[in-house]
């Protein structure tokens, strides 16, 4: 019963994009194999073909020497393949046991007895592998880390011997990550094969037996961690020398920073309390302020209240208590339109849901928040010609790759869409900018661009709140940094005191100040 997977010459095209081109990949029993590459490299696509989500255009998949033709995940599950997706494929309103049972074909009825059997089996597996979860809990009640455990448990319940984890550490605290991998190691020791997809070098070096690097849909190489270094892996990932770290750090005017700290804060937030969508508290007593010409980074693992904070700051969600003021005026009850007018801007975390309207043209999207205002017209008439003219200029200035201003925004890649959003936001008269996960899902070139723009805006005197899950980003960009954990701000450092380990620990809730109530993080304080 030793699984071994062999994928040969896998190719897949989506429309005009060649996502995979002739990729070979193999998996040995008992190994933990990392699939490394930056966003868009094709890692998830490759594993999706293994999981039966869609067939490859070209190429073969062989499991245990038998060639496979998967028509659906059901086929793959039957052959012992299990996948834990980056965005959990769990139904929030159902219980853990119900989620596990979903899709089974054991007769039409689902009596209480059946669910009890399932729960027992789940509990047994949970015990064996140290995945602590209550089968009767409803998924929406569980934390992110717990939900991930449910996903793994479910895969095991379905008999997975080949386990694929897509970006498993993206939503985990460093501590939870530390706990996850030994469990995976235990599974591997029993003969299971594990693939984890990631773009985090540290995880790969620490935990993988072998590493396969993909770049732009092609396999660059497969090697052992001992045979390589972080630098070389990064180079393989990106294809050129990476200057990720240096972009902002060295190019900043130190004098500006000091001055900025003495100026009066632009954004003042006091005592914010808010619930999330399911009625559970998301923000607990959050207070901070930001001065002009500084970037306040709020670091945190996904799921600790950042979306709610983003929404409350911009008027998309009403807090229970607390105030938000911009330049001294209270905007707590103001809607986004008013906040825009007062000079608050937002780069939303979900650019396709909130940032861009796909059915409209690039020119229209670039003027989206200024329809009816000069120079784009008045309340009685829009000036489209001016919209197009300004759009052309913004396209040039921000290097947005489009055939023309009339191209539909829905056809833009992630990087270009984000350039569009930035162009729109930064072309306003802003006093304060909220940048929420601005580089999520972008390739390195786009990431650099975003960082450059934010740094330049900061140098021009803008106050920026940067919400980020990416440690590298935080370490590069922050003038001051604090950490959000379970809806509270739990740590605060000025740039000089920033340290990868410290921030990482705080993000995981394990810091000196974790036990104290939320800090009030005002500029000028260090």
């Amino acid at each position, binding site marked *: 019963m030793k699984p071994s997977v062999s994928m040969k010459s896998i190719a897949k095209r989506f429309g005009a994009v060649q996502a995979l081109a002739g990729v070979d990949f193999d998996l040995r029993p008992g190994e933990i194999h990392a699939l490394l590459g930056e966003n868009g490299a094709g890692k998830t696509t490759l594993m999706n073909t293994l999981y039966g989500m869609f067939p490859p255009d070209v190429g073969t998949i062989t499991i245990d020497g038998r060639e496979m033709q998967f028509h659906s995940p059901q086929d793959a599950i039957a052959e012992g393949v299990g996948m834990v997706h980056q965005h959990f494929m769990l139904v929030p309103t159902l219980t853990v046991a119900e989620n596990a049972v979903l899709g089974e074909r054991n007769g039409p009825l689902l009596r209480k007895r059946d669910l009890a059997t399932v729960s027992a089996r789940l509990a047994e597996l949970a015990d064996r592998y140290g995945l602590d979860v209550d089968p009767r809990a409803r998924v929406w009640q569980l934390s992110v880390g717990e939900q991930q455990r449910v996903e793994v448990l479910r895969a095991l319940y379905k008999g997975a011997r080949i386990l694929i984890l897509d970006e498993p550490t993206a939503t985990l605290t460093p501590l939870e990550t530390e706990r996850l991998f030994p469990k995976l190691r235990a599974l591997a020791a029993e003969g299971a094969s594990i693939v984890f997809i990631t773009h985090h070098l540290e995880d790969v070096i620490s935990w993988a037996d072998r590493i396969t690097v993909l770049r732009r849909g092609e396999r660059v190489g497969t090697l052992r961690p001992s045979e390589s270094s972080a630098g070389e892996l990064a180079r393989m990932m990106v294809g050129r020398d990476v200057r990720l770290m240096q972009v902002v750090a060295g190019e900043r005017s130190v004098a500006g920073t000091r001055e900025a700290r003495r100026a009066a804060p632009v954004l003042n937030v006091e005592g914010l309390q808010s619930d999330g969508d399911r009625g559970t508290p998301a923000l607990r007593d959050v207070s901070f302020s930001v001065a002009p010409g500084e970037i306040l980074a709020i670091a945190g693992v996904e799921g600790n209240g950042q979306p709610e904070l983003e929404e409350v700051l911009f008027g998309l969600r009403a807090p229970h208590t607390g105030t938000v003021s911009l330049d001294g005026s209270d905007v707590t009850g103001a809607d*986004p339109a008013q906040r825009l007018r007062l000079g608050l801007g937002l780069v939303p975390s979900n650019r396709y*849901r909130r940032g861009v309207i*796909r059915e409209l043209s690039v020119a229209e999207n670039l003027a989206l928040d200024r329809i009816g205002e000069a120079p784009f017209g008045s309340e009685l*008439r829009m000036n489209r010609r001016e919209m197009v003219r300004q759009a052309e200029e913004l396209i040039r200035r921000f290097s947005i790759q489009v055939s023309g201003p009339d191209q539909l925004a829905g056809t833009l890649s992630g990087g270009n869409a984000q350039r569009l959003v930035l162009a729109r936001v930064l072309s306003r008269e802003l006093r304060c900018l909220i940048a929420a996960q601005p580089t999520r899902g972008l390739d390195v070139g786009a990431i650099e661009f975003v960082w450059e723009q934010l740094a330049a805006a900061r140098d021009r005197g803008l106050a920026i709140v940067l919400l980020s899950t990416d440690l590298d980003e935080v370490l590069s960009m922050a003038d001051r940094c604090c950490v959000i954990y379970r809806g509270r701000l739990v740590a605060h450092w000025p740039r000089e005191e920033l340290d990868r380990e410290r921030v990482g620990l705080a993000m995981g809730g394990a810091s000196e100040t974790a036990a104290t109530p939320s800090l009030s993080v005002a500029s000028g304080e260090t």
Partner: protein
Amino acid sequence: MSVSQATARIIAPPQLSRRLRSLLASAGAVLLSLVVGGLLIVIAGGDPVDAYRALLDGALGTPYGIGQMLVLAIPLIIIGLGLALAFRGRVYNIGAEGQLFMGALASGVVAILLPAGFGPLLIGAAIVAGVLVGAGWGAIVGVLRARWGVNEVITSLLLNFVAILIFTYIVRRPLRAPGSPDLQGRAIQPEAALPALPDLAVHIGLFLALALVPLAAYVMARTPFGFRVRMQGFNAEAAQTAGVRSGRIIIGLMLISGGLAGLAGSLQILGVAERLDPGISQGYGFTAIVVALLGRLNAIGVLLAALLIALLQSGGQAMSVIEGVPYAIVIAIPGVFVVFLLIADRLARGH
């Protein structure tokens, strides 16, 4: 992108091949529907060719016929324009029928009770009353949706029933025509009646309807309000983030579409029935939905679709008299239109 995609399909931006394909989809749907209509005629024992000829003859053959067709078209155009705008914002006002009746009621009351000495002012007052009350009836739905997220399809629909019953009550009791059978309301004062065009048998409300078409086109394509409506229709969250006040848009759209429905009702009372008559609408509020969809939610399309359907319905009467084919066919066909349109639309877009 999902729900908005279909709406996007219908109101695609002006790119030539897109327009062309959209036109072909409409044409295809119309053709297929006429074929189905032909089939129904055969089932009913008539000859399709003769029947359709009688239909065209009846509608366009005489000045009187043309006039009747235009009379039918007027409320369809007016309400259709309002619904086209509302649907663009994904505000599905199914209550136009009720808003029409409430507007008609208000207009009729003013036209009956206000002192006659006002002359043309009386007409103006009656129309304004109709528009305001129709808008108000629609606003109820708008507020419920904007404030509490209550589904506007159901609320507007249920209010239809309530509106029609209120109208019927007023006709039956307080404002019943003296000495007449149960369901005849009082006549409006002669000064309040809309004058008719000299040769065609249609009231001057026609000009109002036609004037609304370019106005609506302008609002939809050139005003920030029209643009915000589209933004909201495509992606309400992104629109909100960009500063669009969705509550205002929703209520605004219900006020406009309700007001236009009220206007249509008002014109029916003042120009057609000239009394409070429950028969002033045989489902205009619903047929206008078809008009809006068939017209691809834009002003010219609505005009053309309204004329087409008016043609069908007015000619249909002649057809049923001459060929013995049930009038109900022309009621069935608009619905069939939309189904075929949806299919043809999807096929034309590929995907």
